């Protein structure tokens, strides 16, 4: 019943095909788009070329190798004002990463606690958590940062109360446990000082941490292999602490705490958490925590009640239901938005500039830019840093997402 017909004739090219033919049409549109793009960019470039300020200054990153000339308070790597702008920039980048990392950790903790508690059937707690979440979600983070910075400066006890009065009497306030002092110039905490053999203690401690994981794996093997349940909590604690303590004393206490000591103006020694770091860290974590709380809540709610009921019907206890059934599933829902919250934290660290925390926007985008006047170069570099950071994190997120995707038909 089928009849063969000749294939349609090959036609010559007509101008009309540029618009009407699906094969050429896309080239036409792309060509137009490209032309528009090029026109747009050349317009910008033309304007820039008309600006003699820009012309005469040129575009160069030479300035990065000149001495910076300014001091930075929080120095994760050694730095003096004679070092280059490049080194100042690197310090800024490290400081950005430090505060971003700290804030991610605490924001997760706040968020998970608030998210879980918001689902609690305790009315007061769940309402309190709702208030927390709504409060922080609906007020700009910049305001929170500034408020917390102000709180730190105005409500922590002034450092003058810790100073030794010149008449030789006791200061108004002393160190807490002889180690800690929360002052309006920052929180002073002791620092670990490693003597010669100190690294052995540290290594032992790290090994113990590995040991704890080993014990967990062992417990699981035991359960899977022989059906024996091995206690985990007690032995873990023992593994964690006992060897380290023993080694510590055997080696004659090579690790010591360096407590802050009051100097002429402030505590010397020890470790200082600066108000700017505290404000930024705390504000970002509590603000982002509110968002994470919502993600966590949504993640847990997304796991249908049927799942926990089925697990309960199999005889699993609530703790196990959580760890074996609900959490593994909820995490798949929670982690992608969680990572984008981490990205937000990283980007929001740039608000450090409001409290004078010396992150990348404070060094490269702040003082370096001011001193050198190289606005274009500095801001380009600044954006490049954040962009690389963000893209790297999203790449990791994509890999993760693909690896945990539920298998479907």
């Amino acid at each position: 019943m089928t009849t063969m017909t000749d294939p349609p004739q090959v036609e010559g090219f007509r101008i009309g095909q540029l618009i009407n033919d699906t094969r050429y049409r896309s080239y036409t549109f792309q060509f137009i788009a490209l032309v528009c793009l090029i026109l747009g960019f050349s317009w910008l470039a033309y304007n820039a070329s008309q600006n003699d300020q820009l012309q005469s200054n040129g575009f160069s990153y030479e300035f990065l190798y000149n001495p910076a000339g300014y001091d930075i308070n929080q120095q994760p790597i050694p730095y003096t004002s004679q070092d280059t702008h490049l080194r100042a920039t690197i310090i800024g980048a490290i400081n950005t990463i430090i505060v971003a990392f700290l804030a991610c950790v605490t924001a997760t903790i706040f968020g998970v606690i608030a998210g879980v508690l918001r689902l609690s059937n305790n009315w007061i707690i769940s309402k309190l958590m709702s208030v927390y979440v709504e409060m922080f979600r609906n007020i700009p983070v910049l305001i929170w940062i500034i408020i917390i910075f102000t709180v730190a400066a105005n409500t922590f006890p002034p450092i003058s109360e810790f100073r030794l009065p010149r008449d030789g009497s006791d200061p108004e306030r002393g160190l807490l446990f002889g180690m800690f002092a929360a002052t309006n110039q920052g929180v002073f905490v002791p620092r670990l000082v490693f003597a010669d053999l100190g690294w052995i203690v540290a290594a032992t401690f790290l090994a113990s941490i590995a040991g704890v994981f080993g014990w967990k794996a062992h417990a699981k093997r035991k359960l899977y292999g022989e059906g024996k349940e091995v206690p985990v909590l007690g032995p873990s604690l023992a593994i964690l602490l006992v060897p380290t303590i023993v080694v510590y004393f055997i080696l004659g206490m090579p690790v010591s705490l360096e407590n802050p000591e009051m100097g002429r103006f402030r505590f010397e020694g020890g470790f200082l958490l600066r108000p700017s770091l505290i404000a930024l860290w705390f504000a970002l974590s509590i603000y982002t925590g509110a968002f994470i709380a919502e993600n966590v809540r949504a993640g847990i709610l997304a796991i249908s009640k049927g799942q926990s009921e089925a697990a309960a019907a199999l005889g699993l206890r609530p703790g196990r239901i959580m760890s074996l059934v609900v959490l593994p599933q909820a995490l798949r829902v929670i982690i992608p938005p969680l990572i984008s919250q981490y990205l937000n934290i990283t980007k929001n660290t740039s608000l450090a500039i409001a409290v004078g925390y010396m992150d990348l926007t404070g060094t490269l985008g702040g003082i370096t830019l001011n001193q050198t006047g190289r606005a274009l170069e500095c801001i380009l570099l600044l954006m490049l840093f954040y962009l690389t950071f963000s893209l790297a994190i999203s790449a990791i997120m994509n890999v993760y997402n693909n690896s945990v995707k539920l298998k479907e038909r």
Partner: protein
Amino acid sequence: DGHSGSTLATVQERGSLNCGVTTGVPGFAEPDSDGVWQGFDVAVCRAVAAGVLGDPTAVTFVPTTGKTRFTALASGEIDMLARNTTWTFSRDTDLKFDFVGVNYYDGQGFMVPADLGVSSATELDGATVCIQTGTTTELNLADFFRVNGMSYEPVPIETGAEAVQQYLAGACDVYTTDRSALAAQRAGFEDPDGSVILPEVVSKEPLGPLVRHGDSEWGDIVRWTLNALITAEELGVTKGNVEEMAAAPGDNPEINRLLGTEGELGAMIGLEADWAKNAIAAVGNYGEVFDTNIGESTAIGLARGLNAQYTDGGLIYSPPFR
């Protein structure tokens, strides 16, 4: 090319002068409670506007921070910058600006609470220092402490207001910025005597208005407007008597040239003959500007010091109008 060489024309066409100032330093540039800008730097802007446009209120004040001021000027957003900006070599050359003169000789100083018991900056080893960033202060500070072999904890703060707030709260022991600003801000304290300004002056800070490189005509206008104010003080021309002196030219040729009743000075810089008269009439002479905004009779209470006329042992000196 773009906008150099024609700033005057642009300003005249626009009918107003875009003048970059600080975001708020009492006495130097600060909006009053009605939102009208007042201050020592502001007066320079008004004088230029009066000279160029005949109207001291034809100024659009653009508040700038340490970071934005240079780009604002370079990009043409503002026509001149009168924002206590230190005249330095690199700013003049590398950044391609022209400083047209000095309207205030300043120096960086330190302020500490009186009860800290410090009487010299050399006793500040280990102190926490609040710095208002975006100026040369960080660099001077770093140099000072390095030279004296002392350590310190810098606390960079974006705005003067916040720096003061931190200082008053005790979050830093020392507040450093130009001594003029220190004095100005201390005047606003609840207890001004609770703080002392230390005697050390750690830097030379000649502050002055600046314009873009490349438009010398415009640079001349601003330069000579400033000089007109200075000369006016030297010659005794005041806001009060300038109209009179212009209406009835006396026999001092320099005054006559200044006020445009003699010679063609105005035309040489492309302005009306009475431009300087207008400027002086608008804001008064240099001394009056100083006294009304930051002088000893104001809350700021700065003495003339270096900023007295050279005839009184200061550094304020205008080239002759001739």
